[in-house]
């Protein structure tokens, strides 16, 4: 709003101000007070930071309470991943396996942790609630290849999700139950 600009004339400096000395002294006071204050440093490896809820750490794969791998390799996370850190090779679950009714599971699931930007979009997009960004925030390795996590390492890091959806289990039950209600 150009009409409302109010020009304020800069006050000429007083003699004391021209010498800078009062300002320097007040500055020294500030730094001195700071020096005596309690330090804010967190001594990291000894003292770990509190992890707030909803923290986005390392992405991991989880299993359901029955130990079934939740991922069905729909590849939505691979699609949505902004840095293209996820690489999935889909595969079929062989007939005869207890999870044959799920039909599809990842043959291989790789996340390149060096590429991952911890945005959490994979978690958000996952229709099966199989991928979660967990609390782990320190990752290191001796080679680039070492930080490309394969399926085993992702499940090992992810553990079990204690949810009670059992979508596929219910589906299997109804399959066995059939159309008996009619």
């Amino acid at each position: 709003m150009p009409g409302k600009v109010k020009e304020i004339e800069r006050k000429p400096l007083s003699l004391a101000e021209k010498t800078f000395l009062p300002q320097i002294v007040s500055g020294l006071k500030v730094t001195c007070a700071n020096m005596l204050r309690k330090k804010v440093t967190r001594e990291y490896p000894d003292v770990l930071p509190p992890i707030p809820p909803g923290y986005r750490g390392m992405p991991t794969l989880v299993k359901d309470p029955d130990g079934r791998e939740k991922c069905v390799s729909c590849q939505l996370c691979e699609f949505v991943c902004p840095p293209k850190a996820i690489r999935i090779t889909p595969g079929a679950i062989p007939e005869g396996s207890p999870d044959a009714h799920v039909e599809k599971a990842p043959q291989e699931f790789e996340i390149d942790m060096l590429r991952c930007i911890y945005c959490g979009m994979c978690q958000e997009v996952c229709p099966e609630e199989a991928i979660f960004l967990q609390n782990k925030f320190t990752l290191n390795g001796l080679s680039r290849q070492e930080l490309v996590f394969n399926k085993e390492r992702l499940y090992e890091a992810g553990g079990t999700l204690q949810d009670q959806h059992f979508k596929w289990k219910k589906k299997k039950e109804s399959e066995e139950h059939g159309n008996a209600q009619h």
Partner: protein
Amino acid sequence: MDWIQLAIEAGFGLAFIIVVMSMAGLTVVAERKFCGFIQGRLGPNRTTIPILGSIPFFGRLITRMGLFQLVADGSKFLFKEEIVPGHVNKFYYNLAPIVALIPPLVPLVVLPFGQMTLADGTIRQLIIANVDIGMLVILAFSSLGVYGTVLAGWAANSKYPFMGGIRASAQMISYELTMGLSILPVFLWANVPGSTEGLSIANIVVFQQTHWFVYLQPLTALLFLVALFAETNRAPFDMAESETDLVGGFHTEYGAFKFGIFFVSEYAHVIVGSGLFVLLFLGGSNFLPMLPNPWPVGIPGAILSTLWFIAKTSALVFFFIWIRWTLPRFRYDQVMNLGWKMLLPVAIANLVFVMVLLATITPVAAQ
């Protein structure tokens, strides 16, 4: 020449260099530590040496104080690969760190670092070379210090070091004037007409047994202090380095041990400058103004007074650090404006004022 006397003086000289160099190292640690404190951090507190660090209380204390950092920093500079860029002028490039380190060390010989009361009650200033042109020696050598900087800037054959070197020389010339002019009143005051002591610093220290120049001539002290900051290239006058606009300034092309020498010489400068200020304005090894010196007779008194001098110097070094982490860097034109348009006229006016004062009123202490 008395060979024994010479050997003793050389020994003292060596001891002096060792003390100043280790103080320079400690100052680096202090700088990092206080910088951390001022910024709400802890500063270096992790570096440790396996066996020393595991001594129950003491080891942990030293580790937390960051003293081992000194060793780590030093050995890092020592063991890093010495890279000499292809485009430099090799001779001057190698010469520059040496030229930078010698000037702050030479003036040590004319600094009276303590005093010894002899059995017969006479007081002797402890000094390696008590020459009557002591102050001139200091001025001469400390202004040589800029050659190291300029040489580094030139030899590096690269634009930022070059600009750093140019700035350093311009700044040195500007503030050398003020510095000289702010020393003169002190010597005018301390020397009665016809005195033979001339520019001896020991004389100044003796003079300050009862009154210190810092309150006899506060304006002179202030001018000297400001000029000293500028001469040592310390913030807020570190134009020659000025990371924000000159990358690393004059030592951009230097690394490893050569850079380490520049680093140490800067701190040696600070320590010598602090010592000089203590000698000229804060009574040197004298205890406190208007109090008689409590130093006992003989060697113990000499040691105590020396420690007292070192304590004063350390306090001033702390002040240097404190200022550095408080004030932002001046702009180059501001440095020039301050030097030529404010400090120089004030210094001249101050000199004239003191001269007139001394000519009309007999100074208190000169009686």
